[in-house]
């Protein structure tokens, strides 16, 4: 019997979905609205020195990798299934496109986090 490969991709989809549901709104509010406008947390909240210190720490790297990679895999799964339901292309083609893009973005994230240094 041929095993289905889909469940493998449900794990990052589910993990990304849970993280987005628990901290997604707060993250967008902080990094996208409050910090740029300097509301409540000051204009230097995401200054170069502070962001660098965060990304230098192994724990900070792990947090950034988990958020970026799992959010991307979550979105990739949704885009893949929706485009398939729209009959835009064959299922294998869309799977390669969406999962492939998520894989490449994950690798780029790892490289960027390593390039930031320790």
């Amino acid at each position, binding site marked *: 019997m041929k095993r289905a490969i889909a469940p493998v991709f449900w794990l990052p989809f589910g993990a*990304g*979905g*849970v993280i*987005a*549901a*628990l*901290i*997604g*709104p*707060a*993250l*967008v*509010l*902080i*990094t*996208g*609205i*409050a*910090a*740029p*406008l300097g509301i*409540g*947390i*000051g204009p*230097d*909240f*995401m*200054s*170069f020195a*502070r*962001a*660098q210190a965060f*990304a230098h720490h192994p724990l900070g790297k792990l947090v*950034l990798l988990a*958020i*970026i*990679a799992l*959010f*991307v895999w*979550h*979105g*990739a*799964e*949704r*885009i893949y*299934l*929706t485009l398939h*339901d*729209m*009959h835009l292309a064959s299922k294998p083609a869309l799977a390669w496109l969406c999962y492939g893009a998520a894989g490449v*973005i994950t690798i*780029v*994230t790892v490289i*960027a*986090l390593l*390039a*930031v*240094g320790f």
Partner: protein
Amino acid sequence: MSAPRPYTRPIDPQWWARPPYLAYTVREAAGAAIALYALILLWGVIALARGAAAYEAWLGFLRSPLSLLLHVILLAAMLLHVWTWFRIMPKTMPRLVIGGQYVPQARITAGGLAVAAAGFIVVLLLALWVRP
């Protein structure tokens, strides 16, 4: 003998743009918005790796009206994700039994939303705690 030709009902190619399916399309688009937010963060990490000037340019983008508008939309998408995620959750898990009684789906959804609200508050308090 001719090959069987089962009848397949024609499907409206734009079914996803019309109610009631539009609600599902919007929900899935919220998932794409989550990925878009991740790409904005990744751009920031890459800028961080390239140095102070590149990072300042990224911060400059975040301060632009375009980015602020985009993040308001992303925030709405995240909130829609929270709502739909916990509405689906009781349907995708085994039926929960407490004290010999099935827990109603609405109560599982309410519990999930309460945890999400707590997560929202915890992250905001954490940000206030670590602010410069």
